[in-house]
C-alpha cells in the first residue's frame, strides 16, 4: 500500500466491480455517503488537531500541544484510509450477496479519542502555565 506502483496496482485490484452482480444503486449510494461522512470526520479530526496546535496557549511541556494535536491528525489520516477499505468491503459484500462486514472505525475512533483525552487531562493537571 506504500509506493506509487503498489498503490496503483492495489487500487486496480481493489475495484469492487470486478466480481458479483450489479446492485440497487441506492444501496451503493448509502455506502458512498457513509464513506464521505467518515472522510468529513477525518477532516474534522485534522482540523481540531491544527486548532489545538495553533490556538491553545502553550503548556509547560515542550511538546504539550503537539502530544494532543499529532494523534488527532494521524487518526484523521487513518480514518480516511480505513473508510476507503470499508467502502470496498461493503460494496463487495453487497455484490456477492453476503452479510455486510462489521466496521473497525467506531472502535478505532473511540480508542484514540479516549487516549487523547487522557493525555490532555494529564498535561492539563501537571503542566498548566497558570
Amino acid at each position, binding site marked *: 500500500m506504500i509506493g506509487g506502483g503498489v498503490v496503483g496496482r492495489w*487500487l486496480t485490484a481493489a475495484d469492487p466491480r470486478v466480481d458479483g452482480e*450489479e446492485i440497487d444503486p441506492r444501496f451503493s449510494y448509502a455506502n458512498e*455517503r457513509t464513506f464521505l461522512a467518515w*472522510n468529513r470526520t477525518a477532516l*474534522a479530526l*485534522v482540523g481540531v488537531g491544527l486548532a489545538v*496546535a495553533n490556538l491553545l496557549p502553550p503548556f509547560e511541556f515542550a511538546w504539550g500541544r503537539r502530544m494532543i494535536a499529532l494523534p488527532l491528525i494521524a487518526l484523521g*489520516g487513518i480514518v480516511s484510509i480505513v473508510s*476507503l477499505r470499508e467502502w470496498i468491503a461493503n460494496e463487495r459484500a453487497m455484490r456477492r450477496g453476503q452479510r455486510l462486514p462489521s466496521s473497525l472505525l467506531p472502535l478505532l475512533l473511540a480508542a484514540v479519542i479516549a487516549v487523547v483525552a487522557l493525555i490532555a487531562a494529564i498535561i492539563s493537571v501537571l503542566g498548566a502555565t497558570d
Partner: protein
Amino acid sequence: MEEESRRSELDVPVRHAGEERACGGRISREESRRSELDDPGEERAGGGRISREQPGPPGLAAERTTLAWRRSGVSVIAVGAAVARGVPTVDAVPSRPVIGVLIAVLGGLAFAVSSRQAARRAAAIDSSRPTPRIGDLWPVTASTVLVAVGAVVVVVLG
C-alpha cells in the same frame, strides 16, 4: 403510470444482506399499499414482473449523495485553508499562495467529481447503470491524507 414504468425499469437483482436492514421494511409497506391500489389485472398483464422483492420509487438517494459530495468538498477546502495558513514562509518562496492555489484546485476537483457523479447517478437511478468504481472515491481519501500530512508538517515545524 409514469411512476410505474420508471419502477419497472429499475429492474435490478436485489439479494444482498443489507436490504432488510437498509430499507426493506419501508419498501415492502410501499409495495403492499401499491398492490391494494393498483388494478390487479394490470399487474398480471406485466407478467408478474412487479413483485414484493422489487425496490420502490427511486426517492432522493442520488440528491443526498450529491450533497454529501458537496459537503465533503467544502470540508477539504476549509481544513486545507487552515493548513495553508500555518505554512511557514521560506525566504523569497511564496509558499502560502502556492499551497492556497493547490487547495483551491483540490476543492475544485472535488466539486468537478461530484458534478460528474451527480449526472451519472441521475442516469443510473433510472436505468440501473453500474455503481461507482474505486476511481471515483480514492481521490477523496488521497486529499484527506494529503491535508493530514500537511497538518503534521505544519504542527511539527510551527
